[in-house]
């Protein structure tokens, strides 16, 4: 019995405790540093705990991993000894706090093990700070149906603090009995006792953790993570849900550990350390699917610039514009960004912020989309390109400018470049939406306005169509935002596709003499793009099979890197 007490209650000697200042105040952590820290060629490993708990259950793992690398278990804000956030945080807030922690300790690239809620924080951190995170390990990684997610939110009610604390302490006993069932029958009582005591320390704010965790579904975020992932699947009550995560992994695998239960991070720290080393220190070539061996050029040391919106007059009513530019007048050639239909220039905001740091970057809403009024008659691609010459002259004088076009915007960009070579210096496109006459006729037949009907069929059909196209690569919030933008055109919302499917590229593509960069993601137009290549004089292509709809926003740093490399060399 004393053996268990020492194992779960005594801190190993090589583990030290300390505080740093983080996003919400002081953050508390446990750390082990190898004797010859400088000679360790392994990146530091961070441990994010489940909720409600603290970094304490990781003491054994920190001690063990700390033999050959810096190992740190941090208390999530509001748990253990870390100061709490002032209001119920989101997982994104926790991840931002972890970034402040990483920065405060001066760490560069880290590996992370996230346990339950900690796994959600780790996923979010990998998305927020992709360059800071090298490899990821999750202990349990449940994927639930939307119904189950909603049901869990109702259970959360029970976690909220009660107005009156019963003077017989029955609320503690109630909780003791309620959470005991998560542990295996043969789990040591001292393990449970220790974990239970740590779980109480969040006091009246202890529900913040699950409140944040239950609002995020791994299914939405996992597909966006490109770092190698190892999911540990112990028999901890989340067995089935964690196994459901595997199909959502882009670059990872799942390891079933039926012999481990809740508390395994403490109880089996030696075995887990071996598993971690095998994954973290193994060769990169371990049979997992990888991104193509190509790295984006590093971003320049320039801060992103804010996007400002305005209206101005053109031959076709007011045009709405988003733009960003350097604090001092720009150095590079201005870049015009043309969005896909039926959305708006809103989707370029992250790219504008980045390119705007050393040049004027501007993105109009193409007339009929976003906040730009529809033209008085249904326009052709050439009509839209002509309006864009007004936009260029109003915003960037006589040019020349570079142009970036996305889908419909790519067609307009190609037309602009071919017919106005004096105005356009270089052309970058996201796909070449090349269709032959037969394909165009077939698509044109399905391109029309769907009138509103009282039963909302027009909305339901549009929504499900967008979910189908976007869900594989976007969160539901992103899908919703695109849907809302797609409604902006109202009865004119189909005019963009109508213009594209009425436009013959065979004639125009060979006339583009400017250098062209083609980005080719996995968005259904790969083959169309391929067929267009022989028609283009001066093109180079970057294949991005790991990306689909939304990637220019989700990976704006990387994409801005490719664009800079092409535009500025």
């Amino acid at each position, binding site marked *: 019995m004393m053996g268990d007490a020492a194992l779960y209650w005594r801190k190993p000697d090589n583990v030290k405790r300390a505080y740093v200042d983080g996003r919400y105040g002081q953050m508390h952590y446990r750390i082990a540093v190898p004797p010859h820290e400088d000679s360790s060629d392994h990146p530091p490993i961070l441990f994010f705990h489940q909720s409600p708990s603290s970094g304490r259950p990781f003491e054994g793992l920190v001690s063990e991993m700390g033999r050959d690398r810096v190992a740190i278990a941090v208390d999530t804000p509001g748990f253990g000894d870390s100061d709490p956030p002032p209001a119920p945080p989101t997982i994104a807030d926790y991840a931002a706090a972890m970034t402040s922690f990483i920065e405060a300790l001066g760490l560069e690239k880290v590996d992370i093990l996230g346990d339950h809620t900690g796994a959600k924080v780790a996923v979010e951190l990998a998305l927020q700070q992709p360059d800071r995170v090298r490899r990821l390990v999750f202990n349990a990684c449940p994927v639930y149906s939307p119904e189950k997610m909603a049901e869990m939110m109702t259970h959360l009610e029970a976690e909220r603090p009660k107005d009156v604390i019963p003077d017989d302490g029955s609320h503690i006993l109630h909780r003791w009995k309620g959470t005991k069932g998560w542990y295996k029958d043969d789990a040591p009582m001292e393990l449970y006792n220790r974990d239970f005591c740590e779980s109480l320390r969040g006091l009246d704010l202890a529900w913040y953790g699950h409140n944040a965790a239950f609002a995020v579904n791994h299914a939405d975020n996992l597909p966006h993570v490109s770092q190698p992932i190892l999911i540990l699947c112990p028999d901890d009550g989340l067995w089935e849900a964690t196994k459901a995560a595997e199909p959502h992994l882009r670059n990872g695998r799942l390891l079933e550990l039926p012999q481990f239960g809740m508390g395994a991070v403490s109880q089996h720290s030696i075995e887990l350390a071996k598993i971690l080393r095998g994954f973290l220190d193994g060769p990169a070539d371990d049979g997992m699917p990888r991104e193509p061996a190509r790295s984006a050029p590093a971003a320049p040391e320039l801060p992103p610039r804010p996007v400002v*919106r*305005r209206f101005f007059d053109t031959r076709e*009513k007011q045009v709405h514009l988003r733009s960003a530019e350097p604090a001092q007048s720009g150095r590079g050639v201005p870049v015009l960004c043309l969005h896909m239909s039926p959305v708006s220039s809103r989707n370029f905001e992250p790219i504008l912020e980045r390119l705007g740091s050393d040049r004027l970057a501007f993105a109009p809403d193409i007339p009929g989309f976003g906040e730009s009024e529809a033209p008085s008659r249904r326009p052709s691609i050439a009509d839209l390109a002509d309006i864009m010459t007004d936009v260029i002259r109003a915003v960037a004088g006589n040019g020349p400018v570079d142009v970036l076009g996305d889908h419909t915007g790519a067609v307009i960009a190609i037309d602009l470049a071919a017919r106005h070579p004096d105005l356009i210096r270089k052309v970058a496109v996201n796909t070449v939406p090349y269709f032959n006459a037969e394909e165009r006729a077939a698509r044109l037949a399905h391109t029309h306005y769907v009138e509103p009907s009282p039963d909302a069929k027009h909305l339901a059909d549009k929504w*499900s169509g967008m979910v189908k196209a976007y869900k594989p690569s976007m969160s539901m919030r992103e899908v*919703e935002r695109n849907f809302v933008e797609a409604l902006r055109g109202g009865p004119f919302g189909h005019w963009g596709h109508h213009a594209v499917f009425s436009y013959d590229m065979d004639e125009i593509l060979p006339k583009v003499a400017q250098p062209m960069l083609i980005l080719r993601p996995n968005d259904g137009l790969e083959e169309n793009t391929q067929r267009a290549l022989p028609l283009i004089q001066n093109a180079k292509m970057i294949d991005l099979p790991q990306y689909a709809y939304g990637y220019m926003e989700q990976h704006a740093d990387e994409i801005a890197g490719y664009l800079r490399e092409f535009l500025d060399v």
Partner: protein
Amino acid sequence: MHAVWSSLRAIKRGYAPCRFGQVHYRIAVPKAASRTPLVLFHQTPTSGRCYEGLIAELGRDRVAVAMDTPGFGSSDPPPHPPTIQDYAAVAGELFDELDLGSVDVMGDHTGAKIALETAIQRPDRVRRVVLNAAPVYSDEELETLKRQDVAVENFGEAGEHILARWNWAMKQRAPETPLEAVLLEVAESLRAGANVWHGHHAAFGYQHRDGLPKVMQPLLVLHAKDDLWVPTARARPLISNGRMVDLPQWGREMLLLRYREVAEIVRGFLDEA
């Protein structure tokens, strides 16, 4: 065809800087402005787009402006759930940015509370006040309303929240309102995204029963037979310097479809000696 979706030629759009980023507005400027400028605040969660007819009509003899409330339409959102006072402070910044001088204000539902609060915050600037609906609630009613309101919309792949918004708008629709106008309202309403509840949250935190007695300026309350018909009737005794006009023949479609008649009523009040 599609008349509702085509902006009127008389109207221009612009942005002004404000404490929350950029505030978006629609403006109609007559060749010869002879009257005090009017600034209009929309109901939530729609935007100034639903008032283009009214703005164009009133813009024939005065500068008429419709502001998008921060977080709605094209205006940047506040970083926190705002109060009516926050919205009114942005309106004051817009008055200054557009250099409007003395202004009249008009507001619809949530916008009526913004209009009222601007009159209280800026007695030197706001000359006359028009409110469409000024509901006075009991404490019990308020509790119920607040509870309905704070639920943050969750949604799944079926897009239930979008269909719910459509169905709600259809339920409120007058028989003569075209479906395209409903679509426009729904399209505008969805733009606030996850923060769509901010407008009503602010509105339920601000009470006409407290604000109305503080207004010194001449006040006109339009009392249409919409969903606020009953509680607005209770505001009558709180109006010391002004009047309430009963409009039982019109409902929620009034400002969208009857804007010419409404403009005449408003003009009559604003321009009387």
